[in-house]
């Protein structure tokens, strides 16, 4: 049952990442990987809120597997993020590569942390 919850979340999360990435790219023409950047930040905020709800006892562990491990886990990606950073650096866009790393990490870590504490306060 737990495996099915993770798979059900991932079956939605992975294509949602692909579609969001496409939709974001269609709205700008820069080489900066805004699509992956936006998807990772959104997944981090969502996982933070869910973690807060779990810690406050307002969400079940099954919900955690479906939305956290499955959906948010597959929605966000480290492989695409790191490959894009490598490509930017290889094409001489060193500043964009560095900015992608610093901004993605700071925003991701901040979003989860903020989301966790906001949800914990709300559901407490």
């Amino acid at each position: 049952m737990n495996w099915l919850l993770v798979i059900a979340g991932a079956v939605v999360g992975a294509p949602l990442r692909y579609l969001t990435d496409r939709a974001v790219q269609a709205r700008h023409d820069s080489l900066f990987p805004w699509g992956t950047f936006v998807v990772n930040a959104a997944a981090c905020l969502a996982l933070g809120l869910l973690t807060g709800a779990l810690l406050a006892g307002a969400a079940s562990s099954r919900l955690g597997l479906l939305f956290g491990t499955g959906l948010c886990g597959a929605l966000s990606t480290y492989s695409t993020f790191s490959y894009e950073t490598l490509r930017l650096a290889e094409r001489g866009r060193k500043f964009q590569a560095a900015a992608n790393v610093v901004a993605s990490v700071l925003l991701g870590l901040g979003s989860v942390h903020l989301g966790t504490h906001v949800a914990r306060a709300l559901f407490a």
Partner: protein
Amino acid sequence: MTRPVPGAEAIDPDVDLHVPEQRTEPQGRVLAAVAAGGAVGASARYGLSLLWPAGHGAFPWATFWTNVAGCALIGVLMVLIGEGGRTAPHPLVRPFAGAGVLGGFTTFSTYAADFSRLLDEGEAPAALGYAVLTVAAALGAVWAAASVTRLALRRRCG
């Protein structure tokens, strides 16, 4: 001999609209391939997290190695797809293996949540160490794997 392929200049390995061929990808089949790959990748990640659980205040090694391995594999995959062989790979290989399996296997959200958990458990040095070490190892892995794969292809092709 390596062949110049459309998309060799792409930044985004999942989908890059700068590449004309990827603007017109058949959405239904590509989405199904990404979903199927995502299920495989996420299951593997979940399996590793069960085998290697991170207890209270512990360093999340399962997530760490999942992300580092996934980054190394995307480096190998994208060089093979872009520069290896004389015929173009099947159009669903990149969506299935790259966006699907490796995208579903690696996770940015769990990485961030691990950091937040360590911080809340009063393990600030471990949290910061984990955050920095993952970034460094992931970027090192994708660079090293892509470089070694390129070198191997050149040797094989003379």
